[in-house]
């Protein structure tokens, strides 16, 4: 659920642990990843402004949208930008990522942000050099969070763009350095899952502690649907979808959640799942055996069972359990019961066996009743 993700990001990192990291994945079937990203950004900003979150500021690394977009967006969503320079700064990798505009010195309109703009936006021109990017992020963050132990959050607009300019291992290196830095409280990023190889997606999921993926409402797998049906499905998918979240918890379990979302004029809305489809974890079910072990209670009960023909070994007179009486019948009855039983046994044995030994040199062992070994 989106609420729990935002809560997770708000709570931030514990001492000595990696910062929580959220990966938002979308695809062309549900291209609303940026809406989810904006939603998370808004929530985190609100939490920072209200002082409820661990982090003191956000460093937004903008690859796919310009800083002015973010200024407008935050304004329209009711985030107060008066003191914005104290808690948010944008690393602008959108305007001139590779420094081309800069090298074409001429009458180009290099519109930089003037001082009266509400958010501090620093132009970054070397997206291929991820070490430089990392140090720029840290520098900006430390400026926001102050000199002490204050922490800040990092959000990356589009990791897909980063992967265009740099190799997977260097991007992974950067993300893991971000996560393990002791001044970073939380981090989140967006990527388009259909633009990458499976290995790249797997690597980014490996590095994140929460994965939110957007999926279309109904996957139209049946290719024989009519055109009208397809159109209606497309229309449905154009505004709604499912948001699946997998959160890696500290105890090693994974929390799997699912929500519906729909896009409206004002933004994105999350609602709990309308139809209950059981998530069957078939892959996880191994061949289980039947329960052959006993719980404590069962073990105690077993110890209490009086086996027939067994010398209980506790000095009591022989008590042959005939299965009809329960053990809870008083011990004073036991003496009378045992004599009764012995008599009935004698009475029931009416026949006699007469045995003539075949020869004298027969081994004496064969005479012995094999039941002698039993403790009757």
């Amino acid at each position, binding site marked *: 659920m989106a609420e729990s993700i935002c809560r997770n990001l708000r709570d931030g990192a514990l001492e000595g642990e990696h910062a929580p990291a959220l990966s938002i994945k979308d695809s062309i079937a549900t291209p609303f990843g940026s809406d989810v990203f904006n939603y998370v950004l808004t929530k985190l900003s609100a939490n920072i402004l209200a002082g409820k979150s661990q982090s003191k500021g956000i460093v937004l690394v903008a690859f796919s949208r310009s800083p002015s977009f973010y200024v407008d967006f935050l304004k329209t969503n009711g985030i107060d930008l008066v003191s914005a320079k104290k808690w948010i700064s944008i690393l602008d990798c959108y305007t001139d990522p590779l420094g081309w505009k800069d090298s074409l010195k001429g009458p180009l309109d290099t519109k930089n942000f003037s001082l009266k703009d509400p958010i501090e936006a620093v132009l970054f021109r070397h997206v291929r050099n991820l070490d430089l990017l990392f140090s720029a992020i840290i520098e900006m963050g430390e400026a926001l969070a102050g000199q002490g132990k204050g922490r800040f959050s990092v959000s990356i607009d589009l990791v897909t763009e980063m992967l265009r300019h740099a190799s997977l291992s260097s991007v992974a290196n950067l993300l893991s350095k971000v996560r393990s830095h002791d001044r970073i409280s939380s981090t989140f990023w967006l990527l388009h899952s259909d633009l990458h190889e499976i290995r790249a997606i797997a690597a980014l999921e490996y590095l994140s502690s929460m994965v939110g993926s957007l999926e279309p409402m109904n996957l139209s797998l049946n290719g024989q649907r009519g055109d009208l049906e397809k159109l209606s499905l497309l229309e449905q998918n154009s505004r709604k979808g499912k948001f699946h979240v997998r959160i890696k918890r500290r105890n*090693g379990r994974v929390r799997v959640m699912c929500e519906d979302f729909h896009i409206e004029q004002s933004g994105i809305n999350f609602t709990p799942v309308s139809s209950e489809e059981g998530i069957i974890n078939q892959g996880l079910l191994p061949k289980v055996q039947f329960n052959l072990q006993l719980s404590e209670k069962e073990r105690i009960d077993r110890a209490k069972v009086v086996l027939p023909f067994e010398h209980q070994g506790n000095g009591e007179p022989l008590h042959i359990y005939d299965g009809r009486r329960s053990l809870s019948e008083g011990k004073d009855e036991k003496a009378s019961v045992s004599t009764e039983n012995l008599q009935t046994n004698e009475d029931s044995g009416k026949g006699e066996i007469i045995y003539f030994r075949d020869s004298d040199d027969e081994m004496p062992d064969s005479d012995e009743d094999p039941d002698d070994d039993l403790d009757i």
Partner: protein
Amino acid sequence: MAAMKTRMSSFSRNTSVAPVPQAPGLKSGPNGTIFLSSGIPDLDKILGGGFPLGSLVMVMEDTEAPHHMLLLRNFMSQGLVHNQHLLYASPSKDPRAFLGTLPSPVLSKDDRSHNRDPEQLQERGLRIAWQYKKYFGEPQPNFDSHRDTKHEYCNDFDLRKPLERHFLTAQNICCLSIQDPPNLAAFRDCCAKFLAQFSRNNSSISCAGRVAIQSFCAPQCEYSNMEWDMLSFIRSLKGMIRDSNAVAVITFPPSLLSPSSSKRWQHIADTLLSVKAIPDEDKELANLLTGYQDMIGLLNVHKVANVNTQVPVILEATTFSIKLQKRRHLVLECLNQAPVDGSSGSSYASTGSCSGSTKTGTLDF
């Protein structure tokens, strides 16, 4: 009947092959192998004694859960407690920091005996009414008088207590970070140098070594897209290990490799384990398995090393649940299906109604 005459044959069993290990923490096993403990008593039992010297153990991680760290921690701690040399490599910047999280062995007797008692009760199994039983005295305690942890083959580790400092500052630990180097040549040389200390010859073993490599193909390492290089590294490590009195444990997340690479790595291992995460608060799983509340993950044993023998080890069960007893001790248990409720079990309803399904008229049995 005629008594069996003992046949005198010209073959005699050669029993004096394996050198008796004098170093602590080693135990000899069948077929001339020498085992060292994995640090987890249940795992040693499952694998038939432990990890054989000279073998390569690979653990397939689940990207969603850190259970491989638990296995590594116990493995490394056990080595340090037995004064064995350790080489630890990880993709983090500061691998030494991980040593601070190693667990300490449990020393108090009360904890141990409490853990052992339910086991002993179960080992009684069938109660046979046998008249000679009354001649037995009190059952002998299983462990001998020397409970000195130095001589114990496998310790129970308390995951909440960190290992004492004096173990960590010893000279026999080598830590490496494999994140930065662009290729594996330096790492391979380091391993070769480390393993040269324990090369095998026919004399008795003075010391054994442990190599622990964590998350070998982690994406933040520079070499992680050079799949053939990584494979050739593992191959050469396996060759070096075979020739020395050491055990190497490598953990890797198989989903980060290409499928063919992943298969190759799985085949190259002598012992292959995998850990899996379980979903949290899953009602279906809770109904299906007993003890779901305490489980933190699943462990699968895919392959067990068979050294010096052609007879494979076939385990009764290959999937175990990982539980933390009292949040301290790592325990592996067989998975048990919870008793199925007769009225609601859907999978059983179909098999139960065998009479109802045959409506074939005349031949009704």
